[in-house]
């Protein structure tokens, strides 16, 4: 077995021949994914600072129809890979197409959403292309002196922020969570190029096949879109106790979330996890119940407008980030809270 297959390079190639920004776009339900629209805007901004072009890669049979829209949002070039094998995410297929394109286009910067696709695709692409990758960035900036992309990301469960650069490795890659940057402004009059991607997906390259997709139906409001989130942590103590949180959430018209320990215990399904290894939410109101407020969890909810904490221990970290708090046993507080809110609602 030799190393260096599949184009793994040691990062020693020149960076001078790498120019421009490439956004790896996603298509969801036949439309441009909201995060893609946000990234096109960001890509535009970064490209302008560099004085270079901004491009988008769209994959799937709907890609062609969305190219104009991508241009309107700010792309100079839209690379379209219209292949039905790309309609649903397949790691091998997407990596093959995207990597080949990158080797042709040689972008200096590559942006992906920190989504199901981005979490899987970005590291693989990075490995294949030999660039430098920063995952889950909260801020991206071009250093005016060095012209390098400085990516800032949370580390140590969000306890610290690290800023990273790639001095020589190309492309400079970053993933960003949805709703971190504002969506791009739409200008229908913008002009740009639509370029079909050379080469189809090589079926032999698809080693891992998706056999089944199981969607879990979320009851009620979807966590990511909810205006109110009631979240439970290790202090809840058991799956049946989450019923109290569900009651409160339903009175407030919100969704239930949880910290990783509560999900790992099996008290709630994994898709309700809020945090660094789960979802990011930014509701109007975030109620943290029996949650110590470990930074890894806070990474997912600090975007909330108002944070309320209910915890037995007054030293819990959650109180240092909450706007309002009650110190006490949630088992006594939550039912009373729910009842009073119901009363005030009907009044």
């Amino acid at each position, binding site marked *: 077995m030799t*190393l260096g297959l*599949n184009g793994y390079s040691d990062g020693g190639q020149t960076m001078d021949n790498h120019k421009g920004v490439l956004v790896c776009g996603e298509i969801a339900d036949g439309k441009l994914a909201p995060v893609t629209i946000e990234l096109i805007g960001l890509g535009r901004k970064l490209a302008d600072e560099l004085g270079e072009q901004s491009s988008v890669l769209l994959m799937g049979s709907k890609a062609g129809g969305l190219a104009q829209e991508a241009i309107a949002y700010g792309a100079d070039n839209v690379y379209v890979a219209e292949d039905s094998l790309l309609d649903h995410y397949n*790691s*091998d297929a997407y990596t093959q197409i995207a990597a080949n394109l990158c080797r042709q286009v040689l972008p200096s910067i590559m942006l992906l959403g920190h989504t*199901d696709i981005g979490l*899987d695709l970005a*590291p*693989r692409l*990075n*490995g*294949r292309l030999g660039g*430098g*990758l920063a995952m889950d960035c909260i801020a991206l900036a071009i250093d005016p002196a060095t012209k390098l992309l400085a990516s800032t990301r949370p*580390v*140590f*469960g969000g*306890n*610290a*922020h*690290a*800023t990273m650069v*790639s*001095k020589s*490795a190309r492309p400079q890659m970053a993933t960003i969570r949805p709703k971190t940057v504002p969506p791009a402004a739409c200008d229908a009059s913008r002009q740009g190029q639509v370029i079909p991607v050379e080469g189809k997906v090589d079926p032999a390259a698809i*080693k*891992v*096949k*998706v*056999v*089944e*997709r*199981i969607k*879990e139906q979320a009851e009620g409001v979807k966590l990511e879109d909810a*205006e109110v989130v009631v979240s439970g942590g290790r202090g809840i103590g058991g799956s049946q106790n989450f019923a109290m949180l569900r009651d409160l959430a339903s009175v407030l018209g919100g969704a239930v979330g949880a910290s*990783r320990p509560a999900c*790992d*215990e099996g008290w709630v399904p*994994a898709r309700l996890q809020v945090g660094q*290894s789960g*979802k990011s939410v930014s509701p109007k109101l975030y109620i943290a119940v029996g949650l110590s407020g470990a*930074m890894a969890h806070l990474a997912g909810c600090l975007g909330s407008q108002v*944070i309320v*904490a209910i915890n037995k221990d007054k030293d819990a*970290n959650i*109180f240092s980030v*909450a*706007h*309002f*708090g*009650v*110190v*006490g046993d949630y088992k*006594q507080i*939550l*039912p*009373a*809270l729910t009842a*009073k*809110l119901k009363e*005030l609602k009907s009044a």
Partner: protein
Amino acid sequence: MNTIVCVKQVLDPEIPPAKFKIDPETKQVIPPPGVPPVISVYDERAIEAACRLKDKHKGKITAISMGAEKAADVIKHAIAMGADDGFVLQDAAFENLDSFGTAYVLAKAIQKIGEYDLVLCGRQAADWGAGEVGSILAEILGIPVVTFACDIQAADTTLRVKRLVSDGFEVLEAPMPCLITVSSEIGLPRLPAGPRLMMARKKVIPVWKAQDIGAEPAKLDKANAHTEVTALSVPTRKTECEIIAGATPEEAAANLAMKLSKLI
């Protein structure tokens, strides 16, 4: 089934946030005294996944860890859970490597170990948390990769992997050999059984240096790093929390309700 599991020893993530300190000069974390490092939580799940496969299909599990000499503890932990043996990859040249460097070192170690059917990693390290090393390692080894696995079943020459996505699951079929990164949804890892705990404690874990695995100095040179950390800071968050009180918990709850109804 021969499985290789990559495990990392990290600073205990379970410390009070107020105790988390960094040195902005060296861009390192200063661990609070008296808190022993732990095995990265997702790597422990990877060992569990390997043990579950071994329970069903027999075979061998080898654990490797790149780190300080104390990393032998996580190898012993892996052995106590069910791994057969393991190695620590420790060298001054391995310190502060980026994801690419780390993946390279692991790949050379795996090359030295020889035959394998499956490489398992945690989905991301509990400290720097990039979630890249597994995929880069797979690219270096030239094998397919499946990420965020929450269940792995083996059948003949393929693996059936249940993968976590934001609104449910995917089920994939991957050929062996391949690399799989494991997420915590795979379930709680087993408690190391009694006799294995004592056996692992007594075991001497071999240490491999750069020359033992044939790592090229150029690839480990910091000047050739793909990414470097230029700044490390602790974000200051100051929110004044208004504690809502009451004579009884129920009264406090009612007061909170009044407060909230004005907001929403």
